[in-house]
């Protein structure tokens, strides 16, 4: 029988920061529409929120 290829818990854990970052990005974007217009803004935003910030917090602990 065909079974759907569903993500496991660790995949969802890796996905969660992106969902949180997307929620904030969308909220900023619909408030200030210019925020949505640039790929480079999205790249900078994602690097800061999903990579740099967690890295900094881990170092501070």
């Amino acid at each position, binding site marked *: 029988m065909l079974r759907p*290829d569903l*993500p496991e818990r660790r*995949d969802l854990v*890796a996905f969660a920061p*992106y969902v949180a*970052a*997307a929620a904030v*990005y*969308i909220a900023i*974007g*619909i408030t200030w*529409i210019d925020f*949505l*217009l640039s*790929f480079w803004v*999205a*790249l900078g935003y*994602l*690097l800061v929120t*999903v*990579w*740099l910030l967690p*890295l900094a917090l881990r170092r501070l602990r």
Partner: protein
Amino acid sequence: MSWAAHDLEPYAFQRHLNLKVAFVPLLIGSYAPDMMSKWFVYGIHLGPWELKADNPAQFHRGWPGVGFTHSFIFGAVIALILWKGFGSKLWGISFLIGHWAHALTDTGDTVGTMLLFPWTQHFHVDAWAYAGQTGRLTDAAAYFSGLGGMWDLVWIVYGFFSWRVLTTAYFDNVIYRADAFWPWLNRWVPRGALLTAYRVAFFYGTSRWIAWTLWAHVIHHYPYDLTWGGPHWVPAAHP
């Protein structure tokens, strides 16, 4: 024109082509046709001056204009330069796939693309209205009220269906290994940042689709019109 499909299509191709393509030129190819022209379609203000094409649809997709950037031959020439000029067949082929996907996707609107330039015939399916001439905000409202927005949604759903291409294991075993660009960049940029950067177009396309949809339909209440060629409340441009 399409708003999020060009961000998401590369991940779908990546799913099927694995090590046969390099993701960065695939994405650049997908963005390339609009890279230099979109700002002039919508116009920008520089102090008291507004720089904007007199006929945005003609400029963007036509000839005279920069419509040749949406043709097969333009993609092939750049691919050939990457292959023969810079010695990377992989980058050339990957760019070509991304570029042709963009050119074909944009045939979905009412202006279409000159796929076989220098033959200036526009190929257009007329599924959604081309409204670039109305300005960025009205264009966005129209796009996300018609079948164009639904076409983007197809790619988002397919992207989630292909979720494995976004995993760390896939990045390490396929994306990173397929293209020497990543190890080169890894000399200065940590692996974690590269992984995040690889995922950004998917994040950008999906988040932007949700944000524009909320902006158009929750904040501004533009009406949906999912009929062929719609939305018909906006004046659609034609070749």
